[in-house]
């Protein structure tokens, strides 16, 4: 049987390292601009809103809502085939930014736009890097 390659994993760079190191410690870190006060995802060398460079890292509370999603039945690459059907989603975090992830620990058929979710961190075999994900928020 052909060996299935590992799933693609992020390679942190100088700007994104605090985000990915935070994930390994169970923290969802994001940048907020001290000049204009707005949050941004992903981390950048300058604020995408006002182009100021005085950016600070903050920790998100970890709750948000599904802005949109798709249940993937045909995986783009072999390493995701065993996961089908899986949910790809855009999440609007309460802090005012959007990111992409999978919705874990739920029946894909129950995912809806507007659904409340909370951040969790997925460990994958063969890597120390944890991946920010979400799961349904329980009331």
């Amino acid at each position: 049987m052909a060996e299935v390659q590992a799933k693609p994993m992020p390679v942190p760079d100088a700007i994104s390292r605090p985000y990915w190191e935070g994930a390994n410690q169970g923290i969802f870190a994001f940048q907020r601009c001290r000049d204009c006060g707005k949050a941004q995802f992903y981390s950048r060398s300058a604020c995408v809103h006002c182009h100021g460079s005085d950016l600070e890292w903050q920790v998100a509370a970890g709750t948000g809502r599904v802005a949109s999603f798709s249940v993937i039945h045909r995986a783009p690459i072999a390493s995701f085939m065993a996961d089908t059907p899986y949910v790809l989603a855009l999440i609007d975090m309460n802090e005012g930014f959007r990111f992409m992830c999978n919705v874990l620990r739920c029946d894909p058929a129950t995912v809806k736009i507007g659904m409340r979710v909370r951040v969790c961190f997925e460990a994958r075999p063969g890597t120390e890097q944890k991946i920010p994900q979400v799961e349904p928020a329980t009331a």
Partner: protein
Amino acid sequence: MGNKAIISGVHDTQVGALPDSTCMSLHTEASLGALADAGLKVSDIDGLLTAYSFASPQLMLGGVLGEYIGLRPKVNASIAMGGMTGGLLVRHAAALVQAGICRHVLCVTGDNRLTGMGDKVQAALADVGHPQYEQPYGMSVPAAFAMAAQVYFHEGWLNGDHLAAVAVNQRANAALHPQSHMKKPITMDDVRKSKVIASPLRMLDCCLVSDGGAAVIVSAAETARDRPKRAVELLGIGEGHTHEHIFAAPSLVDFGCKESATDALAQAGLKHKDVDCAHIYDCFTSTLLITLESMGFYGRGEAGPAALAGEFAIGGRFPVNTNGGLLSYGSSGAAGGMFHVVEAVRQLRGECGPRQVKDAEVALAHTLGGIFSGHCSIIMGRA
């Protein structure tokens, strides 16, 4: 604006599975075909604009093509902006002509990604996802486009029947084109029962992967009298760019096509209702309907019902994608969008035979790159 720009020659190759083709053979066939169409020789071309290839990536595709066909242009550049590139080549060619830098600019696209890449195509496409913030989550291109469709479904603006009507109409159009990749008729039920790829999109909502090529020659208007075919004038061109990755899109409802269409129409001094036929990038059935609404051709929630009512048919109120589009004519990388430009020109020349839109005087060709990321709208008219 200086000199006026016209389209003097177009050509699209056979599309589909072309195992005897290469990236360069498709570029050559498209180029020589467009030159013959324009009544020009290779040596008449003073500008060469090319796109990119997945099957045979090159650092300098324009240099490789120039060498392959013995062309020594005064201007040579390659542009890589995904599916919108075809439109961009025409726009930059028009700018070169209008500035008086070139008289005849050859714009060429093509790729043999069906027989030249095998099953590596989907993985190569998924590679466009952000390496840190998308690829680790198994994002596919259909799923990324589905994010917008899902919102339209949720709001009640689109449903599966609307999407199916687009697929069925375009397959019927492709059957009228001698070169198209997929001619076998399909029914609404075929689409509705096809396999889910990324909800709410099914297999028959998705465009093809084809081998093929297309070329367009943009010339100075004063050369038109020496050309064998009726000239088509470039009346207005607009672009709109809002993001690259779908998670960073400012909206999942409206996209840069709103600005690109507004600018192109304003330049042309025309209104939406003046457009006789539209040739719009249709990587998915939903992409077409969302683009039509975002561009203002239909109000919110009105494009889907229009598709169901048959408005996009060749004899309908607003004929769309008369060649069958990326869904059924063919999708060959940057050539996918260029096929739309070629078909728009042929409609305005009255060359489309059974696909001809009666009295077509103004056409829109629209190309899209990324995940609704960048858009190029071209309004053209009979010169």
